[in-house]
Structures are given as C-alpha cells and as structure tokens.
C-alpha cells in the first residue's frame, strides 16, 4: 500500500495569550506500509506536534489544527468521530513516549497495564489478556513472571521495554516512537534499539521514529524527513540523505555533530538562531541562516525539487548542489 499514511498540508498553531506559535506549517509527508521513517529536527521543529496530531491527542486548547489532512489507510482521520478515533488509537496506531518514568502508571502492575490495553481493543477474557500480556513481556525480553511487579521495580531501560510491550500489544500497523531512548544511557539505548530493530522485522509494522539523533535514524530507518520550523525541508532514503544531502540545513546538521570516526578541530556551526516559532521567516524558513541565501529565498517559498523517486528537497539550489559538497 503506497498511501498507508499520508499527511497533507498539516498546519497546527498554539495560542498562548496574544501570541500564535506556528508549530507545524503546511507539512506534507508519506509513510509506506512496513516502512520506518525517521523524523529529525531540533527542539521546537514541530516533530512531536505532528505525531500528536496524527493521533488527534493534541491538547486543545492551546493547540489548534488549522488545516490539512491526515489520511491513514484511505480514511481521513480528522473527519472521524471520537469513537472511531478511539478505536484507531492503540489498535491501529500506537505511540511510545520519551520518558518511560512518567508514561507508566505507578500504582498498577505492568501486567495490568498491558492487559488494560488488550481488553480495550480485543474481545477476550481477563485470563486470556493476562496470558497475552505475559507473551508481550517475553517478546520485549522480560520474564513473564515479572508481570505482577510494579513499574518502580523496573530500571529505566526495562520500563521502556514495558512501554514498548504496551504499544505493541494490539499489533498496531503504525508505531510512533517519540525519542524513545533519549532518557536512557548509551548502553541501554543500544539494547532498546536492537530490540526495536528485531520487532520491526518481526511485526512488519510501519514506524515513525522521532529523534534528534542522526545516528539512531541511520540504524533503524529506511527514510528520513528533515524538519525545520514546522515543515519538512528534505525527504529521502537514508542513503540519499546521508550520502547526498541537498538542503543546506541538512548539510549544516551533519556538520555540527561531533563524529567519533573523524578528527575535527572545530565543529562547523550554523550561524544564527533557531527560528522564533511565533514569527517564522518568509520564503524559505532557513534563509536567515543559510550560507547561500539569494534574494529569491527571502520572498518565495521553494517547492519540492525531486531528485529521484523518493528524494526531494525544498531548496532552489537542490539540483546544483550535487555530490561532493558534503565530505
């Protein structure tokens, strides 16, 4: 299915007092079936807002979806009733949050928390649900005997495994993971990433991986969307994006990570500051910080320039900026 998930022209705003925060600005995106998409961007780029609007769990107010469509399996999610939407959440689309410490209920056993999810979406007895919960725990590498324990008896990495078990318990066809390893230590992160890779192979579900770590994306994802100021500036397969980035923001992003495998004296730095979300620059949102900014960039919003079937970049110079410019 090509149009597994398609987001068209999504625009979301937050209102705080008299200020309007433009969190997502006309975002277009597609996720194919069984595909893992990496969602990369800095804080405030609108990654989490996009994810929450797919699930329609944005806090409203202050957030408001001003326009656009989210089409999931040929259904426009924004037109569904609340009841239909509830059926989709968890069963079709599940989400893993960043902090495993706060996303589990501290007064319920982990088994109960998985059961709750199963009972909500499947018609089965409590006992069957408990069985399934045990299976799920084993899938994520936890002994089924531990189903009767409470979250505080688990370490951070183990809790994140439980969260993953809950998310996967109803076999969703789309999994949204919002920085699932940011709160964890490197060695634990490695364990969780390994687990997610395995599960991705096993369940064949689609995944949106929200992260700021380009290393994680390289490991897990098939395609990458680079987000900046509420819109996608470049999209393509990991190979295209990592080996042949065409947008200047993408290039700058790569230059600013300290790389273990290279010896650098100084890091290259993007001049200027992240854009003020209440006042997004006109034209190309990156133009005030772009080293090759032209007059045109200030006034005209660049359309996506298609470089191959999947790779596109919203930059007037995308075609000229070929190979070799990124070391």
């Amino acid at each position, binding site marked *: 299915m090509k149009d597994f998930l398609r987001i068209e022209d999504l625009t979301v705003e937050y209102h705080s007092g008299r200020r309007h925060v433009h969190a997502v600005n006309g975002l277009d995106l597609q996720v194919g079936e069984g595909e893992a998409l990496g969602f990369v961007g*800095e*804080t405030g780029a609108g990654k989490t807002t996009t994810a929450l609007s797919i699930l329609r769990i944005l806090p409203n107010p202050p957030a408001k979806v001003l326009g656009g469509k989210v089409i999931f399996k040929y259904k426009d999610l924004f037109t569904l009733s609340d009841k239909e939407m509830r059926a989709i959440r968890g069963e079709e689309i599940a989400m893993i949050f960043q902090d495993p410490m706060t996303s589990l209920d501290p007064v319920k056993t982990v088994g109960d928390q998985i059961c709750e999810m199963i009972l909500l979406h499947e018609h089965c007895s409590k006992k069957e649900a408990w069985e399934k919960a045990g299976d799920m725990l084993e899938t994520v590498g936890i002994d089924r005997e531990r189903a009767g324990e409470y979250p505080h008896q688990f*370490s*951070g*990495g*183990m809790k994140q495994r439980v969260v993953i078990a809950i998310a996967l318990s109803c076999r969703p066809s789309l999994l949204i993971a919002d920085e699932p390893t940011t709160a964890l*230590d*490197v*060695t*634990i*992160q*490695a*364990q969780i*990433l*390994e687990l997610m890779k395995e599960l991705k192979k096993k369940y064949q579900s689609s995944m949106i991986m929200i992260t*700021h*770590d*380009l*290393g*994680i*994306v*390289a*490991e897990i994802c098939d395609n990458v969307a680079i987000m900046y100021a509420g819109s996608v500036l470049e999209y393509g397969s*990991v*190979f295209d994006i*990592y*080996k042949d980035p065409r947008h200047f923001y993408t290039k*700058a*992003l*790569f*230059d*600013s*990570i*300290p*790389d*273990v*495998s290279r*010896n*650098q004296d*100084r*890091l*290259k*730095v*993007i001049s200027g*500051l*992240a854009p003020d979300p209440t006042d997004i620059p006109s034209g190309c949102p990156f133009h005030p910080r772009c080293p090759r900014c032209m007059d045109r960039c200030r006034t005209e919003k660049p359309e996506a320039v298609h470089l191959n079937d999947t790779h596109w970049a919203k930059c007037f110079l995308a075609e000229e900026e070929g190979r070799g410019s990124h070391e």
Partner: protein
Amino acid sequence: MSEPLLEVRHLKKYFQTKKGLLYAVDDVNFSIEEGKTLGLVGESGCGKSTTGRLILRLHEATAGEVLYRGRNILELSPREMREMRQKMQIVFQDPYSSLNPRMSVRSLIEESLLQRSRGMSSAEREKRVLAAMDLVGLERRLEHSYPHELDGGRRQRIGIARALILEPEFVVLDEPVSALDVCVQAQILNLLMDLQKEMKLTYLFISHNLSVVKHISDQIAVMYLGKLVEMADHETIFEDPKHPYTKALLSAIPVPDPTKHPDRIILEGDVTSPINPPPGCRFRTRCRQAMPVCAETCPELMQNGNSIVACHLCNGGQK
C-alpha cells in the same frame, strides 16, 4: 611533563542510604595538566558528576585528597575555600534549573563579583559583566532579560559567563551540552575550546556522550560504578580501547552513517546498583569475558601500552 594543576588522590564518597552504603565515588585517582582537558565519561549513576562536585567541595568527600597546585583543598577552611573558588568554577548541565528564574541576566553573572570584590562600584561591575557577556557571545541588549526568555544555548552562555567572570584557572564542565540541540551544542563546544585557548583554562569535562568528549578532551577517563576503569589520551581510547566496558560503550554509539553497521557489543542487563556492590570487579556482572578471578579481587589500574586500565583480562590476569 609539566606539573599537574590538579591531582585527585584516592578520592572517595560514600552516601549512607536506607538500603546500605552507596559507593558513589570509590578510590578515584587522576591528574590534569595545566591548560589541558580531561574528559570524564560514564553512564548515569557512575559517580562522574559527584567527582566534579567533590573537587569543588560542593559535596564533602569521605576520604582522599584533591591537590590544587600541590595544596590539598579538602583541608581548607571555609574562608580559604571561598578564596579558592575564584580559581575553580563549574558550569552545570541544565541551563534551565541552574539559573535562578527570578534573577536577570546581569544579576546572575554579577553574583560572583558581589561576593568577591566588595569595593567595586556598580559601574565597574557592569563593565565586567558586559565584558563577560561579550566574551561568551551574549548580546549586550539581553542584560536585563530573564533566563526563561532565552533559548537553551543562550542560557548556557550565561552559565559560562558566570563561571568565567572571576577569571578562574580551572573549570568543571558538568555535561554542559547534554541538554542542548546538536547545532547549539556545536556552538557551545567551539566557544568552550576558544575560551580555553584564550584564557589558558584547564577543564574537567564530564559527559555521557563519548563523541562530544572526544572532540574536546586531551585525556579521557572512563568511569563505571564509582571507579575509573580506563584512562588514556583521546586517540588511544578510541582506536585501541582495552577495557571491555570501554569497548561496549564505544560500540553503543549510533553512527550517523547508514552504510556502516558496526559489530555492536550489546551489554546484558542493567548497571548494577552502587549500593553494597559485589566484591571484585564491579563490571563483571555484565562482562562477557568475566573470569573467576574477577569475582575475587578488584583489578587495579595498571599501565598497559599507552593506556591505564583496571581489568584482569588486559593486565594478564595475574594477582
């Protein structure tokens, strides 16, 4: 080799908890030469931040010595210590919680001056504050802003300005870029390196992020559960890691290159609790190459090629 600016000897810090004694820092030894950077790496709870704080006496050590230019600062009186603080400063991890939300940028940076230079006029202080703001690249017009109005990068610059206004010689950087976005992180790292050159600063750079540490450090020390397990210069540790934990830590870093998939050493289990740790090597519960001897005696740090390692396997298994 020049005289080390700072030498830490047998530094220990135990906390009494309800469950037993917590060995936060357990016999840590290292030294930093003037003008150099030592990177201290480890996972959360390994005692790296505590070590930084012990050196500055923000926590009192249980035992050990911290020699600063040959003088043991753990024995200084509170008054002498206040004098000493002029020379030794710290930059904190979280630019959100380390700045008092009720103070303006100027008063935040000025605070240390107020403690020190009693006779200084307000105009003189303002001059110094503005100079410090220039130094770290903070726009002067932000003088009267409050921290919550600024982004993370600018806030961290306030933290750096505050530490540097007294012109210290030695700065503990406690995860100074962990809370920042990659682009801002790069800016701050460059700034820190420029400042080091300009002001001849000596850094203790604490971080869990090996790639960041590699970038800025001359020497790197790896900590696990309160103990140093390996120490070497920054190239050696990346090219020829000796300790199994260092190897695992290195291989756990996700590489931003889809064509490279390194053979990853996945460590089993979680970090063992630092409360009443088992005898012998602290890492043996997660180590694949653990031997019987590892459970019996705790390995000592020994010279091994260009590195110093505490591992029975690397050091020949003897004793």
